[in-house]
């Protein structure tokens, strides 16, 4: 089946069911998705999914809220009926059981068919979003992401070829997270969510990640991008995201697959810059890689491939 044709059909049905759900979403005003205080690693308000900064993350958020409100609706009806029964049909209130009420084919057909319809309403927009998420064609920048116990390696391809470095938990978090460190995590900026060298990507650009691993299975996850995918040794998984222009900034996530002792300590940080700033960063990195060729380059950060060796006393 033609991929685009399938998408078009699914898309049309999806719009219908979105519109039907739109009312519920609007009334409760939960789409605001304002960036929470400084503490938040993402645009989540602390108890709900982040709206995020990509089209996909917005679609996921809408889908999440659609399904959530459908569930709330069903819950009101079902729990309502249960609570009504619990209040009304009590022996202590003199209720007498209607023992003849044992079966009703009509009712049973109704409560089988209605859920099926509701499920279709949810499945169609979901399918539409899946098609978009899986469409990794026409990417403008590819980065090979390799998981290690317990850090990430970013190797840039395309025009940024040659940029290659590791990204590890930042020193201050690493000191504070040791057992009995005596350091209050609240005093550490972005505790467990900051790295020595983040991934840098341009906004408004379709970035494709090629994920793999050198040891065990890891998972790369930035909630604000609606992007999560496993990094599996020996295989390459694809993932793409395109940050909406104007949403440049720092976005944070964590490894999302148990990968051993320091699974909780290999954060993912992405620094989204404007395409121009990104280009500047690429030039800097290339200059740093090859200092002889560009003697006049501005002082660049330390060569990337050598993260500071982290020495911490194991106190246990």
């Amino acid at each position, binding site marked *: 089946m033609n991929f685009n044709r399938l998408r078009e059909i699914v898309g049309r049905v999806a719009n219908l069911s979105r519109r039907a759900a739109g009312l519920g979403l609007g009334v409760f005003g939960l789409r605001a998705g304002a960036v*929470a205080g400084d503490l*938040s690693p993402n645009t*989540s308000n*602390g*108890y*709900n*999914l*982040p709206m995020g900064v990509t089209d996909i993350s917005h679609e996921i958020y809408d*889908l999440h809220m659609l*399904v959530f409100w459908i*569930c709330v609706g*069903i819950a009101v009806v*079902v729990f309502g009926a*249960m609570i009504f*029964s619990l209040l009304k*049909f*009590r*022996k202590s209130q003199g209720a007498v*059981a209607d023992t003849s009420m*044992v*079966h009703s084919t009509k*009712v049973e057909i109704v409560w089988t068919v209605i*859920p099926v319809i509701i*499920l279709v309403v*949810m499945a169609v927009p*979901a*399918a539409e979003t*899946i098609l978009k*998420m*899986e469409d990794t064609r026409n990417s403008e920048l590819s980065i090979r992401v390799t998981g290690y116990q317990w850090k990430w390696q970013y190797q840039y391809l395309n025009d940024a070829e040659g940029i290659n470095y590791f990204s590890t938990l930042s020193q201050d978090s690493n000191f*504070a*997270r040791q057992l009995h460190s005596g*350091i*209050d*995590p*609240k005093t550490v900026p972005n*505790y*467990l*969510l900051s790295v020595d060298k983040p991934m840098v990507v341009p906004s408004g650009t379709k970035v494709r990640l090629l994920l793999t691993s050198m*040891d*065990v*299975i890891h998972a790369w996850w930035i*909630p604000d991008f*609606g*992007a*999560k*995918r496993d990094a*599996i*040794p020996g*295989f390459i*998984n694809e993932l793409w995201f395109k940050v909406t222009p104007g949403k440049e900034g720092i976005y944070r*996530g*964590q490894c*999302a697959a*148990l*990968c*051993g*002792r320091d*699974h*909780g300590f290999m954060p993912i940080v992405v620094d989204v810059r404007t395409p121009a700033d990104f280009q500047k960063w690429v030039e800097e990195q290339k200059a740093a890689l090859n200092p002889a060729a560009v003697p006049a380059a501005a002082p660049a950060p330390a060569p990337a491939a050598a993260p500071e060796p982290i020495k911490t006393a194991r106190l246990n």
Partner: protein
Amino acid sequence: MANAHPIAHDDHHDQPAAGIKRWLFATNHKDIGTMYLVFSLVMFFVGGAMAMVIRAELFQPGLQLVDPVLFNQMTTNHALVMIFGAVMPAFVGLANWMVPLQIGAPDMALPRMNNFSFWLLPFAFTILLSTFFVPGGAVAGGWTMYPPLVLQTGDAFPMLIFAVHLMGVSSIMGAINVIVTIMNMRTPGMTLLKMPIFCWTWLITAYLLIAVMPVLAGAVTMLLMDHFFKTSFFNAAGGGDPLMFEHVFWFFGHPEVYIMILPAFGIVSEIIPTFARKPLFGATSMIYATASIGFLSFIVWGHHMFADGMPMAAQLFFMMSTMLIAVPTGVKVFNWTATMWRGSMSFEPPMLFAIGFLFMFTIGGFSGVMLAIVPSDFQYQNSYFVVAHFHYVLVPGAVFAIMGAVYYWLPKWTGNMYNITLAKTHFWLSTIFVNVLFFPQHFLGLAGMPRRVPDYAVQFSDWNMVSSIGGFGFGLVQILFAIAVIQCIRGGKKASAEVWDGARPVGLEWSIPSPAPYHSFTTPPALHPAEVRRS
């Protein structure tokens, strides 16, 4: 009657053997059922203690109590102990006690195998728990045992595999016993559709067990081969695929989820009609719904792996099949609600637990539907949202049903009524704390906290602290359960044969005296009049 039997060597079957021999050589379904249930309770507290360590470490950000390795050992073993040691043996124990009593059989069909399948378990768990003392420490790669991580386990690795094999053998034998008993030993006149729902759900569960435990055994054997015999089933460098393990594991793992909930459905379907004084609504459709869930459980395993990199067509298929499960599950919830509708309800402890199950299992069902939606699942997967989801279906779901079953049938087993006030206190405190414990975990997951982490970013502090308080409370309150059960075994107000006089207990188990005599239904009973009424 055995008393009148002319051959003397049969006499020793009349009364339980003295001392430890009664338990070591037990072939009586009631003794074996009791051993399963006691074992399960012990494991519930062992696994619960591990959960307390987990919640204590997560009480605030930073590492205060345990290092990350011990933390991972706790999460891994908490899951293994609770799944294979607490929930599954509890259901097998209930089946041992109640299936023969409900179908009017004198015992399980294969009593010696029954003995063997129980006694494997203490050895399996001794092996599993002793890994805490071997070089390299206990298994810490998650109960899902994903390679390559699990292959990094030290000396505990072969012990884990052996323990899992023993648990699997035990489960398969238990399942065979249930199937053979139900298929061959029903009292005359009890057609399959007249059989009590608890037996029905267990029958389907038993088939699921026989179908999938060998798959688990195969998966862990391949791990063993990869580790010791240089095969490459799951090693990409040798042409294998780590993802294949996940496929095989979840082909076992998803039916396993229903193995842990279908008998709970059966229990709730027994309790609600009793205390609503009204027959189960749509009893036949309940059976079909259970069978549908059993069938669907084989074709949804991929939903555990959406984020692993799956072809789009597979994502769509597993999303649709998973969502379909909501339909028969919904039918069940609606049927239970309809059973309460126009009933005459009273709220004895078993009923309280059944109603608690109904509400909180449904909450877990809702989050299950949300998780089925692939795009959103990318955000939920491996976050605390998943932790909240499966704990809602397993704790106020399966565990509440087990406790409800104990409170329902305990007077039948012991002949004594337990302390009702204590049991009600246990229910209400458990219900409050279990929600304080697990509800905030939805928020944590949505806000972006991954699961299986010993430490977290500071913006997750508040909900974690709330969750931990709920956890400590829930853990402590379970001591009330142990007290209520032990008190009841020791004595108390005598229970009548029907136990729930004034309610509407239906089934052959209520036609024999309380406590149930050591040997019951030595001749097939006539079908209980109420059984006929049900259909």
